[in-house]
């Protein structure tokens, strides 16, 4: 089986984001593998261990420096990588088209993974668009996964601990959530090995994707400032508790 793991090269959540012009960020910050994608790679590696003959391919639509992130994916267990090199940013519709085209060109997917969302734009939809393009079933926020002969049994988490268990035909697409596994971070030998693994580069323009006018476009980006003025509540526990109740009642009006 071939497992394709779609990964994203995103700014580190700890990075300071500064805005350039009207609608872009200064990309001169540390970028890394989207945290949810780590669960996808770890799960793919686990399946490969149980199913000899499985190949794990990491696919990334990114600018040239995304190769670094692709190498991290190889160090986490992917066998090889495909970098679809782009010059500018696209919305999730175009992203799904590009990933689909690259995967289809490369092989026969048995499973396609993505993270359940990316921490930069948080669109939460690319997995569904890939699924619709292939006509494969899709599940998101997958926290448990069992692959059987011709089906997958997945547990998806809703909020408040409520879960849904789905049976899906293969091939299928899955958005991985926290709780699925504990990411297996690469050891030094893994990193060394990852440097020798093949990465194929495809130009986005070679995929002949028709970029239509319909879609989503960021027209303005503004920093979110916080203007909170912290006030200390002093006194013993009883005084503090009474003051908290007053605040909840009179100021926040939630009691």
């Amino acid at each position, binding site marked *: 089986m071939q497992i394709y793991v779609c990964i994203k090269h995103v700014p580190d959540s700890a990075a300071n984001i500064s805005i350039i012009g009207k609608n872009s960020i200064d990309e001169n910050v540390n970028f890394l593998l989207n945290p949810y994608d780590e669960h996808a790679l770890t799960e793919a590696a686990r399946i490969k261990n149980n199913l000899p003959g499985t190949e794990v391919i990491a696919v990334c639509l990114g600018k040239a420096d995304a190769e670094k992130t692709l190498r991290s994916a190889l160090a986490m267990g992917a066998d090889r990588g495909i970098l679809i090199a782009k010059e500018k940013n696209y919305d999730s519709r175009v992203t799904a088209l590009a990933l689909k085209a690259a995967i289809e060109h490369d092989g026969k997917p048995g499973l396609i993974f993505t993270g359940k969302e990316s921490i930069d734009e948080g*669109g*939460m939809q690319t997995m569904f668009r890939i699924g619709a393009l292939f006509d494969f079933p899709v599940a998101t926020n997958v926290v448990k996964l069992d692959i059987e002969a011709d089906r997958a049994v997945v547990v998806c988490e809703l909020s408040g601990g409520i879960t*849904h268990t789905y049976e899906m035909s293969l091939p299928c697409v899955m958005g991985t959530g926290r709780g699925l596994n504990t990411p297996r971070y690469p050891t030094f030998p893994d990193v060394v090995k990852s440097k020798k693994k093949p990465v194929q580069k495809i130009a986005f323009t070679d995929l002949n994707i028709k970029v239509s006018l319909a879609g989503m476009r960021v027209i303005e980006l503004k920093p979110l400032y916080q203007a909170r003025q912290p006030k200390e509540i002093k006194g013993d526990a009883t005084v503090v508790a009474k003051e908290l109740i007053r605040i909840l009642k009179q100021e926040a009006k939630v009691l």
Partner: protein
Amino acid sequence: MKNIGVIIELDKGRVKEANLGMITLARAKDVKLFAFVLDKQAISVKAVLESFGITTIVEICLAKDQQNNPATRAKAMINAIKKFNISMVFGLCTAMGKDFLPRMAALLDAPLVMDCFFVDLEQKTARTYQYSGKTIATIQLSGQTLLFGIRPNAIEPVKAQEKARILKFDSSHVFAGGLRVIKSGGAEKSTAINLAEADVIIAGGRGMKNSENFNILFQCASKINAAVGASRVAVDSGWVPYSMQVGQTGEKVSPKVYIACGISGSIQHFAGMKTSGMIIAINTDENASILSNCDYYVKKDALEIIPVLTRILDNG
């Protein structure tokens, strides 16, 4: 005249509070507001929906065994969108919405912005947070049908009385291949208030020290009708389940009040709760970064303060 559709989320047969702000946002002059109900309870929710300006309630009738299949629901819903010429669709960006709205957008090949806290119906733009809550993005949508996932609690509900008719939309023949629901529900704490939709959240972090101490938060939460959240440290230590995590890689919340107990306030935690109305921090560590980015703080141990708070609330 534009037709706008709002997908109503029910909880035990009642219209969830968060729908009302969403309906308020979708309302405008020259707009016909449709409410879509997929759970066969249109009559019982008619009064509340029409008091917020809904004029047509469409009850989508699914086959019994497809009732909770998100793929079937999405298919039936897009048939209804086409049938009633809906140009904009609003749904809640809840756990259920995250498994439903993108399915619809994908099947329609239509644009969708999730986690919107504002939508401009004229300009066809939506506002959402990007880059771990560090920026506000205004996104232009273009296409025949536009979809919006609305952050619960982001909009204050305002009433507008109308009279609504109920239409049935038979979708009992709709069936999604490839995905079958084997089991649903199975809540660990079914009485727990949903994090994303709660007005008040009381959350614990490293300072809670262990799993048992979280009971202190649950006891207090039941007195103030709050949901209980947790920081990454607390879930990674196995004290509480992942579903309780607030932050970058957890739930993004906007309650009216967020009470952080023993949480230092990392950038990643703030990414999930910085849009809270009021932040109250209880932390013994005076260098905790949350103390300089909140509305009220107490430099004491939450394990000492919260039980006293619960006791006073108990005695009226």
